[in-house]
Each structure stands twice: as structure tokens, then as C-alpha cells.
């Protein structure tokens, strides 16, 4: 089981869902905060859902205030770097590029993609944490090789 957990984690890295920031978080985990990573991830998803909502509403309004959108995305990107959500981050960057170019179509497309990546990551991490909890604490602490 532990091996399974390790494999899942490794695949998350390999597939580019997560980057080294995630590893840094794992390093922070200790006896005082044995579930630190999971707590952070939970916090992130909660907060990012809110941010996504903001962006969604702004886009739905159809007025395309690029400045504002860029601002939101900046926030979102900052947040996503916190857990090392690599793919999500990439989408954020693209979105901001489109904003700067004033490309509404591009923004909409990217945003859709971003939401997808975000949802995927969420699911994967949820799976991962669940398994990890079952497998026991040791596994989480180990870095993927």
C-alpha cells in the first residue's frame, strides 16, 4: 500500500501536476503538524474555488475588464504556487498573457482549461491523501525518488 502511495505521488510529479514546491511542503511536515501538506492543500482548494468563482463571474459579465481579470488571475497564480500546482500555474500564465493581449476568446478558452486542470488536480490529490492516510504517516514524509 505504501508503495502504491509512493507511486501515485511519483506520477503526479512526473506528469507535471505538481512541482518541487509540493516537496518543500512535505519537508515542512513534522510531528507538530503531521498532516500539514493535506491541510495546506485543503486550504488551497477552498480558497482557489472562491477565486475561480470571482473570475467566472467577471467573465460572465461579458465586459472583459482585462485589468481586473489579470488581477484575479495574479492572485490565483500566487495561490497555486503555494502547493506547487504546476499545470494550473501554466494555465494561469497563459490566461494573463491573453489578458494582456486583450484576447477575450483566448481568456475564455484558457479559463476552461484551467478549471479542468484544477479539478483534476483536486481529485488526484484527494485520492493521494486518502491513500496516504491509510498507508501510514511514513509514506508521506518520503520524497519521491
Amino acid at each position, binding site marked *: 500500500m505504501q508503495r502504491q502511495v509512493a507511486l501515485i505521488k511519483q506520477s503526479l510529479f512526473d506528469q507535471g501536476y505538481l512541482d518541487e514546491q509540493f516537496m518543500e511542503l512535505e519537508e*515542512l511536515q513534522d510531528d507538530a503538524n503531521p498532516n500539514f501538506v493535506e491541510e495546506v492543500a485543503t486550504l488551497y482548494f477552498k480558497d482557489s474555488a472562491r477565486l475561480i468563482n470571482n473570475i467566472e463571474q467577471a467573465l460572465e459579465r461579458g465586459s472583459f475588464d482585462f485589468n481586473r481579470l489579470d*488581477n484575479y488571475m*495574479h*492572485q490565483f497564480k*500566487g495561490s497555486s504556487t*503555494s502547493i*506547487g500546482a504546476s499545470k494550473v500555474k501554466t494555465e494561469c500564465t497563459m490566461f494573463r498573457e491573453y489578458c494582456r493581449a486583450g484576447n477575450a476568446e483566448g481568456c475564455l478558452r484558457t479559463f476552461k482549461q484551467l478549471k479542468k486542470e484544477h479539478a483534476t488536480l483536486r481529485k488526484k490529490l484527494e485520492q493521494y491523501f486518502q491513500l496516504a492516510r491509510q498507508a501510514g504517516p511514513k509514506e508521506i514524509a518520503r520524497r519521491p525518488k
Partner: protein
Amino acid sequence: MDKGFSPVGLRVLVVDDDPTWLKILEKMLKKCSYEVTTCGLAREALRLLRERKDGYDIVISDVNMPDMDGFKLLEHVGLELDLPVIMMSVDGETKRVMKGVQHGACDYLLKPIRMKELKIIWQHVLRKKLQEVKDIEGCYDGGANWFTGNDETHYLGGGEDVSFGKKRKEFDFEKKLLLQDESDPSSSSSSSKKARVVWSFELHQKFVNAVNQIGCDHKAGPKKILDLMNVPWLTRENVASHLQKYRLYLSRLEKGKELKCYSGGVKNMDSPPKDSEFTSRHQSPGKNNSYAFSGGSYKAESDPKQLAASSVSDPSSDVHTPPPKAKKTRIEFDPPISSSCAFDSLLPWEDVPDPLESKHQILYQSSFLQQQPLLPSQTPFVMEKEMKPSYETCVNADEFLMPQDENSTVILQDLHLCAPPSAMKLQESSSNVTNDTESILRSLNWELPESNHSGFIDTDLDFSWLHNEHFLANTSGNFQNFQFQDYSCSPSLPSELPPHLWFGNDPDEYTLMVDHGLFIS
């Protein structure tokens, strides 16, 4: 590996509207053994800071916050509290970083932030304190002419100690000196010590209003401003010095766009050696030795001229855009210690604008306070360097060197003022250093890699000599002992406090930090 060293109990205030980052930073800082307070709103942060004026050693703030722009917060903190502020952002765009510099940030971290970057934030606190000490030292520059008429001598703070963490130590020496002076009725000349004017936000607002009322601020003279401000206890000298700083601040803002290297020689009065001070103070890029502030300058060469050249550590010289955002880079800006010297020497505040204008520097360096693995010994080194610039404050090297020590707080010892005697003292104190410390320090010194830091130290010393005619000269760069001066007790300060004390950073002073490249990213 090098865990680096960080003083335990450093009181950090973290401000970020992102709850995820707040949680992460809190954990990271706790791991550094710092005392962390988190805050999700800028206004809340200001409130906390104002409530306990001496409650924090350093502030780390995000740039983008909903209720207040991070830069505004930065300004407030710099003006009112004079605490070092580090900015953070996921965005490493040059112009943003520059903005940070202009507003006085001592560092700009890119998210995601790494532990090693947080581990060294104490250096900013130290640097700032050293700068203040330097000012004080300047005051004691026995009888230098510029000192006369510096009515703006100040009793620093309210007897607050410089310390990390909870330990506080009195600087009796300073206080005694201060008291002596105060009891002297004819205190108008030379060592008169008055209570330091704390330029609170409100006071500064009055000042700004008065200046704006007068119009072109070059015509605004301290007397006029003073009259307009209508603050009975304020003196013309207080206003004069504040005005000087303010002008520097404004000119800095104007020049914000340029990335220029300073060529050195900030102040008119300063001789080249001054530059060396800068350099010596600055951080060197990346490499281990980049702790350049001290970087390498300790190589005991005494060529004052070299300093200008050797501003090794001067990040300012290395102006270059930070590596692409993908990488984490730090852009460091730190006011060189020398800047305070520069100011010290400035008598007429009118002179100020000129030298500054010529240099606008953007201290820009990747990974200033480096990200490299830091040998424990290096830390002391760095500290050493910091201290070095001509003043006798010595930080007890022991404190800094031994992370394992219980008292990781900085030990503040008596300040040895007086330049010439202090020079002696320095040497003496050097000898007091434990062998361990000494050897570590030495090893640090000599381990410095490249950078022609040679003679840094000396230059600094020389500089101070030239500058003040007596400053501590630690010719051999054997600063092994650092004693922190209790700046809060310091008696008279020079009439001009370096602007950077006010505004955080004073890029102008970085002149020296020219290329000697201790930049290592």
C-alpha cells in the same frame, strides 16, 4: 548541509491576503525558530505594528493585497516605524521590483519562497540596526566639525534595545553618555543630545502638507516648513534633516525607472573610501561568500581606492534583470551602511540632492541574500562584515556564530564609541573572541571566493577614517567581535539620518556597490 543560521526569536510579522501562503509561511518561519505573527490584511498589520511599536523586528508583506497596496504598507512601515520590510510576490517583473526598491523594501522575494530565503532575513534586521549604530557612531566622532550644530542629536528611541527575541540588554554606556550631555546646559554645540524626533505618520503628513503648500520643494526651506507646520516642539534642525531625507526619497522615486549603477562616491564630502563602505556592506550575490556585504573585503588590504573598485558585494552594481520568473531569484536591495556615513558627513543639507542625483541605483541582484548553502561559518562572516564599516559596534560574534547556542539572541554589549579609542577597542574585542569564533571568522574571510573584496574592510576603515577622521579603523579586519550597540540609547545622532533609515532603502547610496560582483545567482 548548511542549515544557515538564524537568530532565534526574531519577531516577524507576515502579511498576505492568501490564506494558503500565510499558513505555509507561518510554518516555514516557525521552522526557522522565529516568532511569527500572521495577518491577512494590511490595515490589520499596521494596527498591530502601531500598537506595539517595538513588537516586531521585521515585516514580510505580499505586494498585492485587497485592502491596501503592499507598497503603501511598505511606505507606512518605513516612515513610521523604520522596520525592515520584505516584499513578496509571484510576479518578478522588473518594474515591480523597482517599485519595491523605491518604496524602501529591503528585499523582494518571489513566490514560491524557499526556506533558505527565510532563514537569512535576520540579516536585514541586523543591517538596519547597524546602520543606526553607525549614525550614532558618527555622532561620537569626536569633535568633527560637522558634528557641531547637529542639534538634531537624538536619543534613539525610547531606550529600546536592539535585540532579537525577548532578551534585552541595556547599553549603559550610551545612556550615560546621553545623560551626561543632557545635563550640560550648553548643549547647543557638539554633543547636545535631545530627544530624538520620531517622525510619525501624522507628523510627516504635516510636513508634506507644509512642503506642498510652499510649492516647489526646492524653495522650501526648513524654517518656512517649520513655521507652517506649527509644531511647537519641533526645531528647524529636525525639519532640515527630515527635509533632506524627503528630498532624497523624492528623487529616488523620480529616478525609479533607471537602472543605473552607481559609480561610487555618493557624497560630495566623501572621499572614495566611502564607497568602500558601501560595498563592504553589501551583499554579495549568491555564492557563499557573497555575503558579501562583507564579502571578501576582509582581506585586509588597505587600499582605499580599491574599495570603490571593489565594491564587490555591491549588488547595486550588478544591475541586471532577475532571471526569468520561473526561477526564484531574489532581488536584493540594501542600503549600504555607508550611506549613513555619507549622510553623516553632510553638513549642509542642500548638498544632498547633488550626489544623489548622479546615482540612482537599482540594487538589483539575484539572490542577494543568497540561496546558497551557507556554511555556518559564513554567517558570522557576514555579520562581521556588516558590522565592519567603520563603527565600533561589534556584535558579539559568538551569538551569531553558534546556532546551537541557547542564546541565539544577539548579545548587545556595551558600545564602544569614540573613534580612536574604539579602534583600539575593536582590536581588543577582537582578542576577546573565542577561538572558535575567530577561526570561523577567519576561515570565512579567507574563503571568500573571488570578488575582489580585497581591502574591503580596510577601505571601509580607511574610509571612516577619512570621513570622520577618527572612525574606527579596524585595519586588520579582525572584527571578530561584534557588539551591538544599543542604538536606542545612543546619544546624539548626526543631524541627518540617512534617508534610508526613513525610507527604507536608499539606493542612492549604493554607489559603491558596483561591480565587484559578488553576485552570484
